């Protein structure tokens, strides 16, 4: 289909000078855009695997030099970082599971006309898309109900996400009614119909919701900043932020871990503030880069459905 289109276009193409100039300029400009987006990641990565001495003096720009992986071993020995990794991972897993379940379930339930006062509940949920109390009232309320410094403050506020519910509901409504009717004739109840008929059919949209939620959970920073002061609950994002901004705490860390991993802590391999910062950056960004290719197939779908719904 796509290649056919290209052929047709080629057949039509006349070598208009304006077209040629435009073509050349387009390629140059987009190469530049692509470079600007890729290079920073590449730059940081080659610095983490190059000699820390050279890297610290800004000598690594395009190719890694004196490749070693001590930096990654070094950061794996920082206890607070491992804790942060566990917190980030658990909130991503738990948060994603709960949000996906809630979106699917509510999307399905709100499409059932039998529910008592359905419209009111649905509107009550959807209305929350258009307002929020603001961070300070939210902060005070969370403190009052005892969620300050609790792991659940990462999870519960986003379990019911109106946008994902709308996505799921739209999808559920496109499922032929005969399917659910048949299940109900066979004696399946509301829940049974949901688990055995609806879930299998709406899997594609659930994948989209799952991936978006997972990325949002992994990236979340503001909730830690606002609602958590207990270091045991700090996430990777928050820890990374601290590493960038609090040079003094990082120095202490460098001194304590510098020699832990590498027996021969040469200048090239010893941890420095820069090396830890860059390595942690790569560690935090890596999961996103890894799921991104899978992800890409889904997000176009997600945004299209969102767009259609308007």
């Amino acid at each position, binding site marked *: 289909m*796509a290649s056919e*289109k*290209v052929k*047709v276009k080629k057949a*039509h193409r006349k070598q*208009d000078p*304006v*077209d040629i100039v435009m073509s050349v300029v*387009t390629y140059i400009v*987009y190469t530049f*855009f*692509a470079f*600007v*987006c890729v290079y*920073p990641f590449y*730059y*940081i990565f080659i610095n983490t695997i190059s000699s820390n001495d050279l890297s610290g003096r*800004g*000598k690594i*720009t395009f190719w890694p030099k004196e490749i070693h992986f001590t930096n990654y071993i070094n950061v794996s020995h920082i206890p607070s970082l491992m804790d942060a990794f566990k917190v980030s991972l658990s909130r991503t897993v738990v948060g994603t599971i709960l949000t996906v379940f809630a979106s699917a*379930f509510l999307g399905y339930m709100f499409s*059932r006309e*039998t*529910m*008592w006062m359905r419209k009111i*509940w649905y509107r*009550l*949920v959807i209305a*929350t898309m*258009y307002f*929020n109390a*603001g*961070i*300070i*009232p*939210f902060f*005070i*309320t969370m*403190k009052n109900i005892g969620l300050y410094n609790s792991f659940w403050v990462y999870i*519960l506020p986003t379990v*019911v996400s109106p946008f994902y519910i709308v996505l799921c509901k739209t999808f559920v409504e496109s499922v032929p009614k005969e399917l659910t009717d048949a299940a109900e004739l066979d004696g399946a109840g509301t829940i049974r119909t949901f688990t055995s008929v609806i879930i299998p059919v709406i899997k594609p949209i659930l994948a989209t919701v799952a991936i978006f939620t997972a990325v949002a959970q992994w990236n979340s*920073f503001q909730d830690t900043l*606002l609602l958590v002061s207990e270091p045991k609950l700090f996430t990777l*994002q928050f820890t*990374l932020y601290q590493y*960038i901004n609090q040079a003094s705490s990082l120095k202490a860390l460098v001194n304590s871990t510098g020699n832990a991993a590498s027996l021969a802590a040469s200048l090239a391999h010893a941890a420095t503030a*820069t090396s830890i*910062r*860059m390595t942690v*950056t790569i560690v*935090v*960004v890596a999961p*996103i*880069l890894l799921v991104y290719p899978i992800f*890409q197939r889904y997000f*176009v779908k997600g*945004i*299209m459905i969102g*767009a259609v719904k*308007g």
Partner: protein
Amino acid sequence: MKLNRKKVRGFREFLYVLPFIVLVLIFAYYPLYGWVYAFYDYKPPAPLSPDLFVGFKWFHYMIDNEVKRKQIFQVLINTFAISGLSMAFSWFPMMFAVFLNEIRCQPFKKFVQTVTTLPNFISWVLVYSIAFCVFNSTGVVNSLLMQAGIIKTPIMFLQSSEHIWFKMWLWLTWKNAGWAAIMYIAAITGIDEELIDAAKVDGANRWKTIWHITIPSILPTYFVLLFLNMANFLSNGMEQFFVFQNSFNKDYIQVLDLYVYNLAMGSGGYSLSTAIGVLKSLVSIVLLCVMNTISKATRGEGFI
């Protein structure tokens, strides 16, 4: 009897969703009650008591207190400048999509689209970390510039308030443009192929096809997004500005959302901060309704 069973079932279904509705009430509606703090002189951890009630004191204070008034004025200027900049350049993602669509080499096109969308999925903390690595005094930009002999001492890109609004726009664009373009790419895909072919038969070159067919076809999408952006004029979010702020650029980087945060968390002004937040929320709701009405009047449909 049958009707009754249906009713029972409907009520049972309501009970299934009840836990979720409770969650919504707790996390979206109950915090609204926190607005009352704007009318008290609240200093945690002391609980609210009637004798702390101050009425509209904080709302007057914003205007009467000269220091605060100046501060808030500057914050508003920053907010308007940064939102205004992104509005002035809101055509960028659209043009990005339009010219990307002109690329014939499919693998290259796919590659560009993939890598320019990627930054949208990393957090602002990571963006800042990248900015720090690339632009600090030993970062690649400074070391290349020094090697080339263009500068003698490293430029402090991040530790200065120079062009800070524009820099913030640049980072926002770096992060978002590729993603924002996807909407337009989808809209372009929907353009009737025959229109374009007809134009070509008439001898239009690519520039003319873009100008007379592609752009007019995707303008409606542009306007929806523009209206939505305008409705969010006061809400720049705080994360981007929080991570980029430091003592050098603080005066010019503080947008409303960040100011509200700094005021409460930095200097303990919970009540004043809530008051500003309340005002902001009210103005935002009005803006949303106005833009929705404009959208309805011009395009025939709103976005609420």
